[in-house]
């Protein structure tokens, strides 16, 4: 079992340029079925051993694609997401950073009544370790098969947390990068729900950051969870009112601060880590206490 992807997942890569080609190759080397690429006007070509089609619709019909991985540049990315949704792709993962927020307002509205799920944008993607299923940009070497799920707004902090876990001999069921933008398809709370329901996952690392109220909403759900959650909030030392790289990482108001988020998570029963280098060690202690390690 796994979250969002498994060994039967068939990935279409939208935007088969440099990054798309490289990550298609990396995914395939890991064992993931990368079935085709979509670049309008290039249909019928074969690039890097990958058949290219003009539309996502063709990718679904011909290859049974059921996961879309999007690298399309920001001005065209919302269109690419909506194309995948219209083609009925159940899991749409958008890596692209820098999509105008008002484009995402429209996308979010469409996703609301949709059977498709959007992950991202501005995210590192999804991996299911035991299934060797990877749609994203994460380095696979740091992962180890096991039972901890990792959720994060930041890409590089996923790698960091996974690396710390692996060095301590704690494997992972998978990771979901929900994305660093203000408007994202799948919230931290929804990602928690997925791992809570996954029989292959025993515990969860949740990595939030300053800005917005998504961590407080996640905390509301953590109150009801059976599995232990270890949480870290990035940006405790960031000055208010400044955008820290991620478009969503800006403190506007009291709820956006790291301390407000930490307090909400702690009150909900999560174990909150103060230093980002203690994520792995804290999870080890939590697992030992719960008799899971």
């Amino acid at each position, binding site marked *: 079992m796994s979250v969002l992807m498994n060994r039967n997942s068939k990935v279409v890569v939208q935007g088969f340029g440099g990054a798309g080609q490289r990550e298609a190759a990396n995914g395939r080397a890991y064992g993931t079925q990368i079935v085709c690429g979509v670049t309008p006007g290039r249909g019928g070509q074969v690039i890097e051993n990958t058949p290219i089609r003009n539309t996502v619709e063709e990718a679904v019909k011909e290859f049974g694609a059921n996961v879309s991985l999007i690298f399309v540049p920001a001005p065209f990315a919302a269109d690419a997401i909506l194309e995948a949704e219209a083609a009925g792709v159940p899991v749409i993962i958008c890596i692209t950073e820098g999509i105008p*927020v008002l484009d995402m307002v429209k996308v979010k509205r469409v996703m609301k009544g949709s059977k498709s799920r959007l992950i991202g944008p501005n995210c590192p993607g999804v991996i299911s370790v035991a299934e060797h299923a990877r749609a994203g940009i994460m380095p696979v070497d740091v992962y180890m098969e096991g039972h901890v799920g990792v959720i994060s707004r930041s890409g590089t902090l996923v790698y960091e947390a996974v690396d710390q876990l692996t060095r301590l001999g704690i494997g992972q069921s998978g990771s979901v990068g929900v994305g660093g933008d203000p408007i994202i398809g799948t919230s931290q709370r929804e990602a928690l729900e997925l791992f809570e329901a996954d029989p292959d996952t025993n515990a969860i690392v949740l990595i939030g*950051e300053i800005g917005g109220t998504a961590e407080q909403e996640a905390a509301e759900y953590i109150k009801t969870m059976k599995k232990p959650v270890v949480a870290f909030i990035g940006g405790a030392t960031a000055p208010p009112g400044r955008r820290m790289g991620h478009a969503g990482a800006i403190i506007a108001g009291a709820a956006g601060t790291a301390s407000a988020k930490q307090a909400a998570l702690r009150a909900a029963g999560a174990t909150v880590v103060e230093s*980002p280098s203690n994520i792995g060690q804290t999870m080890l202690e939590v697992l030992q206490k719960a008799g899971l390690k």
Partner: protein
Amino acid sequence: MKLHEYQAKELLARFGVPVPKGRVARTPEEAEAICRELGGKAVIKAQAHTGARGKAGGVKVAQTPAEAKQHAASILGMQLVTHQTGPQGLPVSAVLVEELVDIEREIYLSVAIDNTPGMPVIIASAQGGMDIEEVAANHPEAIFQVHVDPACGFQPFQGRSLAFKVGLTGDLLNPATAIIGALVKAFDATDGSIIEINPLVVTKDGKLLAADAKYSIDDNADYRQKDIAGMRDRSQEAQRELEAHDAGIQNYVKLDGTIGCLVNGAGLAMATMDALKFEGGSPANFLDIGTANSTDTVVAALKIIGSDPDVKAVLVNIFGGLARTDVIAQGIVDAKREGFIPQPTVVRLAGTNVEAGMKILDASELDLGRADGFAEAARMAVAAAKRK
């Protein structure tokens, strides 16, 4: 990107929001002339990207054109220091000269993005002219909001509903509804990230006017908002951030500590700052180098960091995904050899192509602190900065 008040009002007026009569002036003589056009009395307002300008001496009332000239002369060229600007303040090179308005009441009105539902939200309060954060904390019941569903757009009933709640009734109802509609239209057409009219005033003669306005544009939409992108006032931004921007480094924020940071990924960059604080140090900057697929970008970034007089030590923390650690390593070696980073430098590399990256650092035989993990890297950088 933030706009000046005069730019915000120009844009709002274009979409049908009524604003006080007035114009921007860049010399005392212009201010005098505008004041005369306005009938001899005016308010002179410093144009700088900060609130609380009045308390800092940036807003003055002139009863005669000569006085307008005097006030403009005292405001133009000043460094406006408020609690939002930091001690160095912001330069003032323009003043807005506006008609005096007889105020009866002040209303708060804004549009912003509400992340969770993923929709624009219109916020209104009868307690205008105050810091809305304070109103929200002390009188949450005095704040009203409605979301704008992108499927059907703003509807007049939403405007009426807010207008009634903040007491804009009778003859004010229709103009208030129209203003709220115009505000949403401006937000949508210009890729706004926040537009705040605070206060929207009810004048003694029963008119509505946007007396002050803050306007920010979504940076991601620059490519399709070229006219507005041209309104950018570089004098309002930190010099070092502009240099970084010009060198192609987008995500650089100057901070007040002593350790220069080069990190990939915004989350890891924030966490690196946190780790430095945790170890007793403090970051001189936030810098997300992103994918960094050329050594030139890395060298340019390190040059910006190395030339910062506050920087006593440099910490490079890279966990390669899309970013390649070998490219970063080569950039570090090049920057060190060029003398761009004379400060003690601690490097932590992990992820994509890390073996190749390590080899490049080894082969360089440069004096670089090498850390295996996150905490160790932070500890070493803090120690190096303190020795300096």
